[in-house]
Structure formats: structure tokens, C-alpha cells
């Protein structure tokens, strides 16, 4: 059976890769009865955090207060994961473009759509282990 070709657009801010995928692929990789969904809305004093730097304390986040009123971000958290502490499996940007900021990277604009989140990996040849890049 021929595999379905996965087509996605990649947005990257440092060690965080956000893949803009179609509805089916997004559903396949985020949908579980154990998952939780957290919603954020524009012009509200909250932050949608995509990744939290364990080493530096820096965050990849959307400051919702600075977004347009109609903008919305919905984080899809995996089993036993908490928004603001863990990396979401994916998120949905609704209605308006949002901007992700980080202390050491330029802002990144994301158009509305469904995104999966990945942390890039590296191989530590000294300890001989593959690991996620620690920011």
C-alpha cells in the first residue's frame, strides 16, 4: 500500500519547530481522550507557551495581550501535560496571525492554521546519547 505523502510547512524559532499540517494529520497526532485543550484569546493578559527553556528559563510564547482581539490560540496538551510547563503536542491559531517571541530569537509570525510542535534533537557524542536540544 502506498503511503500518503505528508505535506507540511515548517516554521522554526531556535530549537522549536512548528509544522503547519492539514486537519487529518493534526487530528491523528493530537487527538486522544486523555489530552487536554487550553484556549487563549487576543487582548487578554495571558501567554500561550509553546516551549519553556529549562536551562535559560527563556520561553517561546505568544503574548495574547499584544494580539488582535479576534486572535485565538488553542494548545493541545498530551497525557498528563500542563500548559505553561510542557511542550504541547500541537496548537491551533485561529482567525488572525499571531507572533511568537523569545528572548534570544527574532519574533516569528504564524498565520492561522494547525501546527504540531517538535523540539529539535542533537546527538551528544561525548555522552553518546541523542537528546532534545536544551535551550
Amino acid at each position: 500500500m502506498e503511503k500518503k505523502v505528508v505535506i507540511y510547512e515548517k516554521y522554526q524559532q531556535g530549537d522549536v519547530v512548528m509544522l503547519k499540517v492539514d486537519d487529518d494529520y493534526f487530528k491523528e497526532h493530537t487527538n486522544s481522550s486523555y489530552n487536554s485543550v487550553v484556549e487563549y484569546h487576543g487582548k487578554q493578559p495571558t501567554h500561550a507557551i509553546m516551549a519553556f527553556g529549562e536551562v535559560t528559563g527563556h520561553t517561546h510564547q505568544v503574548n495574547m495581550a499584544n494580539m488582535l482581539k479576534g486572535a485565538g490560540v488553542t494548545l493541545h496538551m498530551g497525557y498528563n501535560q500542563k500548559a505553561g510547563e510542557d511542550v504541547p503536542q500541537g496548537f491551533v491559531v485561529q482567525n488572525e496571525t499571531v507572533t511568537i517571541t523569545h528572548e534570544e530569537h527574532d519574533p516569528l509570525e504564524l498565520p492561522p492554521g494547525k501546527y504540531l510542535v517538535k523540539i529539535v534533537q542533537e546527538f551528544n557524542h561525548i555522552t553518546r546519547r541523542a537528546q532534545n536540544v536544551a535551550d
Partner: protein
Amino acid sequence: MLQTETSKTRKEMFDNHLANKASKYLINKQLEWLIEQGNIRESIYFKGETGDRYTIYIASKRNNNIIDFTTVQNSYHHGTELANTIATLRGYILTMHGSGYSWNPGYGLGNTFKQLMRQGVMSKKHSWKIKYCRSAFMIKLEDGTEFTPFKGMQIDLKKGTLLNKPIRSSVKAYIEAKATDKIQRKRNRIANKNNTEALQRYRDAGGDTSQARQWNAQPGEGIENINWDMIPIDNVFKHRNATLRSNILEHYGMDALLKTLKYDTVDIDFIDGREYKLLNVEIPDNSTGQSDSYKGLYLEMLNPSTGESHFEGVANVGTWNSPREATVKEALAWRDGDRTTQGLSNYENRDSKTVYVVPVKLT
């Protein structure tokens, strides 16, 4: 009714021998009985020891002086099968012919000889030892003779001596294995010394090495009181413990470490105007004793926002779940997990040059 000896069956005589008489020359009493008292076409058999349970060894008396040793597979086989001839006994002289392992006659013969030893086919008073060392078996007799077993070797089971000269391939295998062993032992000695000294230095500097030995050890534990001036950067290669190596690496940083190492640039690529380099770095190996150094791939790239250069390790080509070739694009695809996202294993899509998806935007 009292049985006279002449009316006893051969089986009873055999059992009586095993129960009452100590063997004189061999550890295996059954075999000694067959040599001393067995009739032509009588045979004994025994199963292999632990790890060799599926082999049945059969010794059959061909004539008054010769016993043939063969093996068959112990399986649910309902037909007949041809046995493998492994050795011949002329009196107490054992001649090795081969083994049941046709894929590697050298290894198989040594292994078969070892299995016979484990079953007591060995001199009772002049025993010998066998070991597998650096890809070759080595037999050490009581008189100090040491050699790699070979096809046609003759051992006197009474005296525990080798009766013929080892053949050329046996001598070569023995010499090579000994030379490899010597080099490896030296490496291990140096590696052990490096590791011991590095551990001592780490403790003297105020570090806690005990936490790093726990099964759930995490980098960053036990470093609160370390005086890093007492731990040179090259100690990262001397520790055998990965957590301790991580701690030192975390302190000095990969960029500082790489500046001390030799490397080749294996690929340069420009993606959206950004320069990426793939480096093959020679990393000293002072702790494992396996080699003097090994290679590791690193991506050198610029942070597009700050312009700073930094390095990230990439799995070496040919290892599990690694890039398929040493190119910048393959390394970036591995880093970003593009292959996984596209549902491709390492063995699929071999014809395509790369699966790297260039970011729409990268900051």
C-alpha cells in the same frame, strides 16, 4: 535367583561400572568404559552442557582400537539424519576432525572441543584449559603448551599432551589473537588509569561521583561545590561515566570543547542565504579502551537572530536512526525529525536525495 556375571546384560555391566568403579584416565567414565570394555558397534551418548543442549554427542566403537565421535541435533526429527563426524579416538589419542558448525570451522572446532571437555572428555590427571580470546580459542595444556585448536590436532587423553604441530592457520590465528589481546589489555590499563585519576580529580574538586553512579542519575547533580579550576577540559574524555562527562561538558560548553579538537569539514551548504557546515570531529577516547579516538558529526550554524555561531551534534551515518549521508541537508532533516514526520523509516525512500523541508521562516 543369583545372577552370574555371564548372565548379566551389557547394560547392567555398564551401569555397574559407572556406579562402582572410579575412572582411571578420563573424567568421563562412560567413554573410558567404551574404550576399555566396549564391544564393536557399541556406543555411548550424552547431551551437550548448558548452552549446548541441542547437541547429542555419540561415541561408537568402530573396531577394537577406534571410536568415532559424531554429533546429531537433538530435535523432534522423525526421520534419519547424517551425523557430523567431529573426532576419532585411537586408544586414548583424540584426533579432532571438525564440528557441526560449517559456517565457521575454526570457531566451531574449538567450541566442539570445549563442549567435549565440559562432558569430561579430558585427562583426569593432566587437565587443560580453554578460553575464547579476541576471536580465537586458546587451549593451554598442563605442560604450558598453548595453541589455537585446529583440524587434525591430536591430543593424548591419558597424558594431556599435544602430539602434532599446529597447522599454519592455527599458528597465525593464535599469534594475531595474542597480539590483539596485548594491545587491548594495554588500552584497558590506560583507560582504567585515566578514569580512576579523573574520578579522583573530580572528588578532590568537590564533586560528588556517587550520585552519577545511580541508575536514575541526572546531569547536574552533585556539582554544587565543585571548584572547576581543578578539572581540566580534557577530563571530559577520561571519565567513563556519561553523567560526569555531561557535567563537565555542561560547564565548559561544546563550543569551547570543539575548539580543542581536530575536524574535517565534510559539507557546506547555504539555505536561504544562511551558511551551514557539517564537521567530522575527531574525539579522543581515553576512557573506554576501545580505540584512541572516534568520529562524531557536528553541524556548525549561525543563529539568524543574533548572528552567533554554535555547534550541534548529529548522529553518525550508519548508526541507528541516523542521517543517511553526511550532508548538511540530511543532518538538518535528522535534527528537525523530518523523516519521522513524513512517516519514513531509514530504509525507505532511498532514491530521494533528501527529505529536508526548508522552513518557511526561521528566526
